[in-house]
Every structure is written in C-alpha cells, then in structure tokens.
C-alpha cells in the first residue's frame, strides 16, 4: 500500500481589501471583520488538485489558521472549498504578532497536527505544507521561509506549478529572471502564487458537507508553547493614514491632448 499524503494549508483571515482598512489606537490592524484571503484560496486549490492527481493514494488536506475568534470563518470557507478538517490557533498573546511570532506559532501548530494525525496505513504519511504567496494585509511573503526554517525543511516559494510523485515534489518558480524547475523531497513548505491555479467555487453540496467536518481550536498552552516564545521582534512606533491621492487636472481630448500630456510631463520635469 502506498504512503498516505498529509497536506496542511495555511490560511489567514484578513480585512477585506475592497473595503477601508485601518489601524487601531494600539497601532495594530483593525481585525474586527475579515474574509479568507483571496491569495489563500490558491494553496487550498493546489492541495485539492494534488489529491485529485493521486486517486490511488490517501490524501488528507488540513487547513490551519492562526488568528482571533473571527478567523473561524476563514476555516469554514476552506472546508467548503474541500479541506477535510480545520485547526484554529487562537490566543490573545498572538494579537499583533509579527512575522517572527506568527511563524513560531504556526510551526508549533503544524508540528502538533502532523504528530497527532492518524492514518490507516503501515507507513507514515508524506508531509507537505502549502501557503499563499503572501498575506493580503502583512504582504511580507516571509512566513513560509520562516516556517520552513523552524521545521528544518526546504522552502520553495512563489510556485506556479507543482506535482507530486512518491516522496518527491516538483515545483516551477521564477527566481529573478530565471525560470526554475526544482525537485525536492518531502517534507517541505511551498508557497503558491495566484497564477498556480483557478480556485473552485464551493457548490451547495460542498457547503452542506463542510458543516460536518471537524474543527479543532487550540490555545498556545494546548501546544505546550509559552507566550514568551511567540513575542514579536518588531515594534510599530507610528501608523499614520496617508493623505488620499486627489484628482489633478482632467481634460477632455479636443485633438491636442497628446501634446498637452507632454507639456505637463515637461513642466513636471518628468521628460
């Protein structure tokens, strides 16, 4: 019997970028409302496609989020899209967590999920962690590499294609001006771009099925992690709303607009 595959997808509950986003007086992002980050639908889709590409193997997809209570809605969406189970690490000590703290918390949760997972197989499962290319609020894209560092595994970020054969993952990514095709042994952390796939829409059946899927909620103590182990290393001193851009001079073309643009660029010393 071939080895099972266990994929953990990291998802984040983020303030909707289509709406106004703001900082609180504590210089933290206002997280009172949110959605599953659009970029985080891609790793879920990638996991589902890997499962569909391996019909002869048992593939489990677990969704993990680190975030406040409201983040459970992001997990719900992940389950509707097709994840099998969900894990939610919520702890007040993680409010305002930076990259360092987020990756420490996520690494502890990933280890716990892998350690406690049971499979009906003789051999241990192959392990893969999939993430989006970056969160839509922090936008650093640095968590996947930090997670990989903490887990002691390779990180292949910004993947545009991936395929899995026994023990090996093949990933396409762009490095500078070079298109790379890489082969890595699992376990590994892989972040996928929004070009990797087109996420599916959950149908009614999937939405109903999601309600029966297990969701496990943890605090840091459940993972044996002290709050001091997840302290942020970056302190935000000030957060100021930038004055919104305003409209300048708008003209309607009367046959001379091309020349007028050039006049403007010369005046502004941009030519």
């Amino acid at each position, binding site marked *: 019997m071939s080895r099972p595959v266990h994929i953990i997808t990291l998802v984040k509950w983020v303030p909707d970028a*289509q709406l106004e986003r703001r900082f609180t007086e504590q210089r933290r992002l206002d997280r009172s409302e949110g959605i599953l980050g659009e970029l985080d639908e891609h790793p879920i889709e990638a996991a589902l496609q890997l499962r569909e590409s391996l019909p002869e193997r048992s593939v489990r997809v677990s969704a993990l989020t680190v975030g406040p209570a409201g983040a459970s809605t992001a997990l719900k969406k992940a389950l509707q899209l097709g994840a099998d189970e969900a894990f939610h690490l919520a702890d007040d000590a993680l409010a305002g967590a930076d990259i360092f703290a987020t990756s420490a918390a996520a690494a502890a949760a990933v280890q716990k999920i892998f350690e406690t997972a049971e499979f009906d197989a003789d051999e241990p499962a192959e392990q893969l962690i999939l993430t989006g290319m970056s969160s839509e609020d922090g936008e650093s894209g*640095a968590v996947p590499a930090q997670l990989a560092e903490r887990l002691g595994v*390779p990180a292949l*970020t910004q993947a545009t294609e991936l395929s899995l054969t026994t023990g090996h993952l093949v990933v396409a990514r762009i490095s500078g001006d070079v*298109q790379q095709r890489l082969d890595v042994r699992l376990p590994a952390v892989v972040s996928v771009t*929004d070009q990797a796939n087109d996420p599916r829409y959950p149908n009614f059946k999937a939405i109903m099925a999601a309600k029966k899927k297990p969701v496990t909620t943890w605090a840091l103590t459940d993972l044996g992690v002290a709050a001091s182990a997840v302290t942020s290393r*970056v302190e935000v001193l000030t957060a100021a709303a930038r004055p919104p851009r305003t409209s300048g001079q708008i003209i309607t073309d009367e046959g001379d*607009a091309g020349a007028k643009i*050039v006049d403007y660029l010369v005046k502004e010393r941009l030519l």
Partner: protein
Amino acid sequence: MTNVLVFFDRLDEELSGAQRELLSLAGRIGAVHVVTGADPQVVPQPLSVKGIHDIYTGTGLIEPPDAALADLLETALAESHADVVLGADTPDAVDALARLAVRAETGLITSATDISPDLVVTKQVLAGAYTTTSQVTGEGPLIVTLKPNSVESVVVPGHPQEVTSLPVGPSQQTEVLASEQLPSTGRPPLTEARVVVAAGRGIDGDLSLIEELADELGAAIGASRAATDAGWIDHSAQVGQTGVTVSPQLYISVGISGAIQQKAGMQTSGTIVAINKDEDAPVFEIADFGVVGDLNEVLPQMIEEIRRRRS
C-alpha cells in the same frame, strides 16, 4: 560605528538600480559589507565601487532557493558584526533573510522605503493607505528589505576588491531539474522602473502603441488584471492587489478603469497620468493629469510630440 551587511540574492555583470539603492542606503547608515551567493569569480567586477569594506561569498555559487544562503548570511553576519542586514525586496532575498531572522532571533521588516540613522524603518502598508515607522526589539540585528525607487542612488565607481570566501557551500536539499533564462524584453524590470506604462481593457488586445510609448520613455510595461486575464500581456506584468506593487516616478495608465484592485498596486507612484475614454473611470480620482479620450488618437500624438521635442 554602525555596520551594515548588504545581501545580494543575485549578481549580474552590472548592479541593478535596486542594488545601487541598497549600497547607497547602507553607506548612509554605516560601514558597508556585502555578501552574495554569486560565483566568487564574477563578484569583483560589478562590485567595483567605493565604500565597500568587505565582500563575502561562499566557496562557490549558492543559488536561491537553497537554504544554504541563510548559512552564508549567518556566517557573514558573525564576520561583519553587522547591526543591520539589508536586502532587495525580492522573494529570493526575503526567503534567505527570513531564515536568518529566525536564527538571529530578530525582527524582519520587508518593503521598507527608508531607514533612519537611529535605525527606525519607514514603510507603506495596506497598499499605501498607511505609513508606519517601526524598529526591532531586543539585541539582534535589524533585518530589512528595501522597496525599489525608495532612496537616491549615489554609487561611485572604484577598483575591484578582494573577495573573502567563507566556508559555506551549496546544500543538496533541492535538485535543480531545469534553469532557463527568461527572454529579455530589453525593458527595465517592472518593480524597479522609473517609468511604467500600464495597459488595460481599453487597448483591446493591441499592444503596439503601448510598446512604442514604453520604448520612447525607457519604461517598463504593466497591465491591469483584465489585460492579463485576457492573455494580451503576461501575468507577471499585472499591477495590483494580487500582482506587483510598483512605485515609479511616473505611472501612465492607459485604458484602465482603475478599480481598487489595480489602484492598490500603483497609488504610491510619484505622478500618475491617466488616459481613458470613460470620464467616470475611477482612475481619474487619483490621476495628477487625466485625459478623457481615445487612446488610439492620444498616444500617437503623444509619441510624436516626445520625438519632436527630443530632436
């Protein structure tokens, strides 16, 4: 004296604009040391500039995404006693510096636009809606990636220098099956360009005028999601929330309505010029100079006028 270690995740025959900015900012903060995974043989030429104290490499070429780059960084950090480690705002640099931050138990700040002498970092967040200042807490070094087009470039040519080869080599964790140079467009990289000409739905699949204007201005070509989804322009050129964020001196938006998704990727540009046939297009709300008109009439005149003035 503050020591700054500059990390180059790649090194070509000439320094890129973004790399010059890194050296300029580092020089303003303190003594500059450079570390790169590039081949030690090819390193001295592009790094023949004044003000670099040390240049560190591995025993040979170490290429991203090899985690050995973090080993190299860790060793160079110890050698240079750096207070600040500075890299480009590229995924490859972020990956290596992110690992270094875990090892050094310190903070990482990406996409910075400036660092003050007392090591306070300025950056734009939430797609340019906010400006924050921040610093690292604790004893570890400050690790930062710098957004291109952020600082003035002052790099003075100098003589080739000696390279210190540190005892770090590539790991075997990842096997490179293929590595192909992407075709060169002859245009500057989108995120580093001083001028960007961006095309949207309005071009209706015809890129000829966009390319002509971009070549006239030495500009990079960007695109809205509509234009990349339609297959007219490669996805890598997509400017916006889910694509590339650009901050050029001049952004020329052509036939793009300018929905929030697109605005998020370009609203920190120096000057925005917009051409759109719809006077209600949201892009006009943020344009410094806007033309309501047919791009097929406005662009040829604009190109001709630029040529006329230059001749």
